[in-house]
């Protein structure tokens, strides 16, 4: 019925074209103003949390291990949406009020931190013990060994799984619409609420998400090539 009406009713087709045309700009604005900054900031902060968490997990100090385990367990064991709701709607009831955007940043960073920490932990553990020993024997401290020897090699191993994490994150930021961040999906919802063209608007949003993720996977390929210069193929 719907399909029929588009192709048989030129007036409706024109209306759809008009709405579509006037929607691209606000949608892309939502992407550029909120979705992308949110994703980037949360990913960078999340990675920092992830590295610290991974190091805590593999440290010999018991209390660090426990804190890291509990953190990862809680974040992985509860839905992201619930975490966001607790931050934005829950905390104000005990007097902690956080604006939508910072609340989203905190929520997504903690989420990325937990998932990526497992990736980074595995990557660090995949580096042969001889690399630590070689770093030690030339007199490097723990921090120097990590920075110069271990993490650069672990980064190479981590690129594919971390790219996954990043792409998931971009799509997950649509959940921020539910805590009132006017990222792209919320913009789509707002426009659709005025004209009821849900399929059109959500379809346009999906297309933009897909395009962005596609560009990112191209970036992943380039990054992998760069890091692969020192391994034989």
């Amino acid at each position: 019925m719907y399909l029929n009406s588009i192709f048989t009713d030129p007036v409706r087709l024109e209306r759809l074209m008009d709405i579509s045309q006037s929607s691209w700009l606000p949608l892309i604005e939502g992407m550029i103003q909120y979705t992308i900054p949110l994703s980037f900031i949360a990913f960078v902060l999340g990675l920092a949390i992830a590295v610290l968490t991974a190091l805590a997990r593999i440290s010999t100090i018991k209390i660090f291990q426990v804190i890291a385990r509990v953190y990862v367990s809680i974040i992985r064991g509860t839905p992201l949406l619930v975490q966001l709701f607790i931050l934005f709607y829950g905390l104000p009831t005990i007097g902690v009020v956080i604006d939508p955007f910072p609340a989203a940043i905190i929520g997504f960073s903690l989420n990325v931190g937990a998932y990526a920490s497992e990736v980074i932990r595995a990557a660090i553990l995949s580096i042969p013990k001889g690399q630590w020993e070689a770093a030690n024997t030339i007199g490097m401290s723990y921090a120097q060994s990590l920075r110069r020897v271990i993490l650069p090699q672990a980064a190479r191993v981590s690129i594919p799984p971390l790219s996954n994490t990043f792409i998931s994150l971009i799509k997950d930021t649509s959940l921020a619409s539910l805590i009132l961040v006017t990222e792209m999906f919320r913009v789509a919802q707002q426009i659709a609420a005025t004209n009821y063209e849900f399929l059109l608007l959500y379809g346009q949003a999906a297309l933009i998400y897909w395009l962005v993720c596609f560009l990112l996977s191209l970036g992943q390929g380039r990054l992998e090539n760069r890091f692969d210069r020192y391994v034989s193929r």
Partner: protein
Amino acid sequence: MISITDLHKKFGKLEVLKGIDLKLEKGQAVVVIGPSGSGKTTFLRCLNILEVPSKGVITIDEQTVDFSKPVSKKQVNAFRKQSAMVFQHYNLFPHMTALENVMEGPVIVQGIDKATARKKAQALLEKVGLADKADEYPFQLSGGQQQRVGIARALALEPKVMLFDEPTSALDPELVGEVLQVMKDLAAEGMTMVVVTHEMRFARGVADEVLFMDGGVIVERGKPEDIFSHPKEARTQQFLSLISNTDAI
């Protein structure tokens, strides 16, 4: 130069080193031989504190560490700077070129400026015969070349003692010679060296002294010609006859 007193190392309940006493003079090249599991590699690693001894005192040059007491990280780092290790599996940093591998210690640990370190690294690569391989990554080099970069990397720190842990065991037979030659040159220059190896010809030709280890102790030590031609201890005789048998095969 090196003085070791009553060195013990336990892994859990297993005692791998059961009291090693040793004194070495500056400029001596010492070869440690012995069956696998004899503790020779552990002994070598203790000298660089890659394994922390359970007990004992080690002095290298002017620094002494007593492992009966708790040892701080600072002490370990200071002590390590006196020796440098060459590994069986080279353990080069795969994400750095040959030159960068050699520069890494001087630049990052010793804080020498890059230009000076680069010159020095280039000279060391030349010394091990790899001047033309400076910009190659480890995966582009043969095992023998990688090991020579490993030696250059160790030398870059200007250690007082060079430690070699079976440096040729992972190499194809035809590549062993080039690595031994570099080591021979070092010995001739008067570098103090402790070498764990199965290369008996190298031991004979280069070592000032040979130690035979078995069961976590030094069973016998002496000039190479004495050890190889008329070993006193039964265990030494047995080990050497086993080795010469496989040589014959």
